[in-house]
């Protein structure tokens, strides 16, 4: 049997290895909503306030791919590789040009050469609930000093030609991918209300 694969969102204070296919604290995600709380299903609660100046970030989101397919304790696929993630490059209808009326999307550089954060470096999204989230660009565990200085990465560039390459997290078991950590930044001139939606796509190669 080949792998069953799910997009998962991780929330909560910490993760533990619940079993060979799932990290506790995670939930299967079909949609996610940027907000100012650490929740996979916030509903309309705690939206991102429009700041009077500069930018207001959401709490960061933490997503990864979970590969199941256990067959008597062994995995039912030979290996998984080349995990990628991309969006359509047009974020909430705006171009990549940064203006204060935009909603930007940012992600963490990761803790290695490829994008993505390992489960061991998971950190709960923090900030002032209902007000703003902490900036992932200022999280020293995920971003080098140089990338903090230059800011984090705009996801507007994360299209197929510059997609995020998120390698498997566990070379022994290949049970989940590294985590994509991302957040939305709302500019001071952004209009209130629902800004619309984005479509994200995950891709990976598998030898069954």
């Amino acid at each position, binding site marked *: 049997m080949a792998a069953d694969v799910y997009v998962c969102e991780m929330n909560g204070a910490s993760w533990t290895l619940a079993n060979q296919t799932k990290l506790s604290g995670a939930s299967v995600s079909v949609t996610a909503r940027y907000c100012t709380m650490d929740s996979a299903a916030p509903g309309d609660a705690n939206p991102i306030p429009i700041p009077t100046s500069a930018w207001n970030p959401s709490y960061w989101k933490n997503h990864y791919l979970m590969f199941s397919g256990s067959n008597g304790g062994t995995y039912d696929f*030979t290996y998984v590789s080349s995990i990628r993630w991309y969006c359509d490059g047009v974020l909430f209808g705006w171009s990549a040009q940064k203006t204060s009326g935009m909603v930007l999307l940012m992600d963490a550089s990761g803790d290695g050469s490829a994008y993505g954060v390992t489960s061991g470096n998971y950190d709960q999204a923090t900030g002032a609930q209902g007000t703003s989230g902490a900036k992932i660009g200022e999280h020293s565990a995920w971003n080098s000093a140089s990338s903090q200085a230059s800011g984090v990465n705009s996801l507007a560039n994360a299209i197929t030609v510059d997609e995020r390459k998120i390698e498997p997290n566990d070379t022994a078991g290949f049970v989940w991918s590294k985590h994509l950590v991302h957040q939305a930044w709302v500019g001071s001139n952004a209009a209130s209300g629902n800004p619309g939606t984005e479509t994200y796509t995950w891709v990976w190669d598998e030898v069954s």
Partner: protein
Amino acid sequence: MHKMQDKKASKPQLNQPIKKDGAWLWMWIAHYNDGTSLPQYDPYTLKTHLFDEVNQNKLIKFGLYPFPTTLARRLREEKGINVRSNIFLPKYEVNIDKNKRVIGALTTNYIKNTLYIYCPKCNQWYVNSNFNITNIGDNVKTYKCKTCGTQSHWMCKKCGKTFNHLKETNDWKCPDCNTRVAGNRLTFYEDSTQEKWRVYKLGYQHTIKGINHKTIMNIQENGDVEITYE
């Protein structure tokens, strides 16, 4: 200031057919030079074999085959494996001689989450790209259907004239009858689906004058094939 009023109705069902449900459409079989073969799924025991188990030294042919109807049903019902039998799909095979090494059992897989939005005028669900988001004044944003142009708007309480933006009014008043306008917010419901699909890859690689060459069939789920050389 007037508040936009929601005109709520019961949410219609999103019956968008999920055409890409991630079901496996082909299984591989390795054929050996002694007349035996190794299938990905044993048709009797349903045991799964991995590509790692293929004996490359005996391999003479490697193929992708649509699932037989009975095997597909048993794999679904007895093993819970998401496979589907489609007898109209072709089979794909590569012959392997001693100079070639098979590239098989490889798939590139996709998961895409898509939001659908319901247009109350069309009475139809569309993918979110069928809508623009427009500001109609007073910092109010609304979806605008690209098919019929419907959006939330402002309406004169007296004559019923509608305005797509506040700037079309005389400071909140109807230019025709000088009556205050009110917001008429339409409900654009949202719902989402998740699509899963894959591209199957089958081919071989061989070395010519020290350079490795790959010939790969990239097989779409509808059976279309694109051949690439690397």
